[in-house]
């Protein structure tokens, strides 16, 4: 599948933003973060900024962005519509949370932040389900894909919260959390790659089942229907990813692994040095996430390629 930059930026930026919003809403009521309203406000603004940049970027992917509001109507059947509804609904408690912080209403702030955390988790789940619900793409149509999106959003969000914690002089809890989530993201990604590399089950679609010619025998393409490109091939028969697959996978793994010593170092060092190291760790995490998302698309194959080259 074609890794469109707008979608990669969207899921990475919004994922990190929702992850940050989630952990803010979970850890703050547990008194595991700096208690000052200004800390929570900075984290909230950063999360909403990332979410908004991501959502705006997702509009660039549309052929008719000015009609995007129509996407809120079909939540009964469409995960994309559900994602849109959840994304907009999450702004409501998030903004109430901000107003409560500004007007010094700690009770309301706590309730609103927890509601925003739930909204953030639901939105990221919907994003994951958009991909996981697509049967023709075997690398996405897996039960682990939507939880993977949650895990990655939680990981990058915790990294950002640890950066803010380090700047405020209290990085330990979010940094510890980000280390745990980095380990989780690493093992989940390894398991995912093992799964998509495994031989395909006999029930998977083949060129023989796609054409129905299996009764005659082994089928292979003879003449293509068109000699030039078309949108289908550019969108769904993207092949560069498989060429650079191993190197890119190593880069993603290296990025995820590197955040662990960096976050631990930042906790141990503390102070301004700790803050700088934590910023570095978060940047590495986000860069690895961008590469992971690029691969998530580039490695995915669509059954339409069965018709064109006999493989999927």
């Amino acid at each position: 599948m074609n890794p469109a930059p707008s979608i990669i930026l969207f899921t990475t930026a919004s994922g990190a933003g929702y992850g940050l919003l989630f952990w803010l809403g979970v850890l703050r009521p547990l008194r595991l973060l700096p208690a000052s309203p200004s800390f929570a406000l900075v984290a909230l603004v950063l999360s909403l900024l990332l979410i908004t940049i991501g959502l705006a970027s997702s509009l660039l992917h549309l052929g008719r962005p000015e009609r995007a509001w129509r996407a809120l109507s079909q939540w009964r059947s469409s995960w994309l519509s559900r994602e849109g509804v959840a994304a907009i609904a999450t702004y409501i408690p998030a903004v109430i949370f901000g107003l409560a912080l500004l007007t010094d209403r700690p009770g309301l702030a706590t309730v609103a932040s927890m509601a925003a955390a739930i909204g953030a988790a639901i939105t990221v789940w919907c994003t994951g389900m958009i991909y996981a619900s697509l049967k023709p793409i075997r690398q996405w149509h897996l039960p682990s894909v939507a939880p993977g999106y949650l895990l990655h959003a939680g990981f990058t969000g915790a990294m950002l919260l640890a950066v803010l914690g380090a700047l405020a002089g209290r990085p330990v809890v979010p940094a510890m959390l980000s280390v745990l989530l980095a380990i989780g993201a690493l093992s989940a990604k390894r398991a995912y790659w093992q799964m998509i590399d495994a031989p395909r089950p006999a029930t998977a679609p083949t060129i023989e089942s796609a054409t129905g010619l299996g009764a005659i025998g082994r089928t292979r393409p003879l003449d293509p229907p068109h000699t030039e490109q078309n949108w289908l091939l550019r969108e769904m028969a993207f092949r560069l990813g498989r060429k650079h697959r191993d190197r890119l996978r190593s880069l993603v793994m290296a990025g995820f692994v590197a955040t662990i010593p960096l976050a631990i170092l930042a906790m141990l060092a503390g102070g301004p040095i700790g803050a700088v190291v934590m910023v570095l760790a978060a940047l590495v995490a986000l860069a690895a996430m961008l590469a992971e998302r690029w691969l998530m698309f580039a490695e995915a194959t669509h059954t339409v390629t069965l018709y064109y080259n006999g493989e999927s």
Partner: protein
Amino acid sequence: MTELPPASAKKLGLVIDLDTCVGCQACATNCKQWNAGGHLAPLPDMKPYSAGAEGVWFNRVHSYEAGEGAEGRTVHFPRSCLHCETPACVTVCPTGASYKRAEDGIVLVNTDTCIGCGLCAWACPYGARELDEDEGVMKKCTLCVDRIYNETIPEAQRQPACVITCPVGARHFGDLGDPESAVSQLVASRGGFDLMPEMGYAPTNKYLPPRRPMAPNPNPPAEAEPTTLDIKHPLMRWLDRALSR
């Protein structure tokens, strides 16, 4: 509404005979011609007069080799929307632009409300949908909804453009929901099949398999021997007579 309507009794669709299709591209060409001005018009062509020409087509004709040796066949294979009974292209649509008609099962796009997100094309296993990058909306086969009910054209022409143009009669149009219809009878008698049934989309369109090649005649007629009159040279003619005694 992108929720699917209750299954319709009438299921309009195509039956494509892979035995007789000669891969002439007439169906694809006439489809392009009609639909460039039809229900989902225009069908864009980018760089039509230079290298890198491409555009939206509702019908693409592939050619395959199947089987080996004497059993092997070259099969021409037109690929278009199958107007599935459970089309995920409809249910994934976030706007309601993609819909399945309750009355006859035709799957269509409302290009006035489509946002061009492309998710329906991702959800279609068959590659039936192509984005119009000019207009920023999705386009697909309409089953010539603007021909089959069109009372301004002669009744005999109220068939999809691809069907009416096929020079070998490899394409058939009709109601596959009616077991007595000519297309349903054809599917039953020829062992028509679904494409990628394992995906569970329940396509309405059916394909008819290539017939098995005829077995070679076990008692081929003896080759006629040359008669004396076939031998023009007098010396050879004498030799033939002498040796035939």
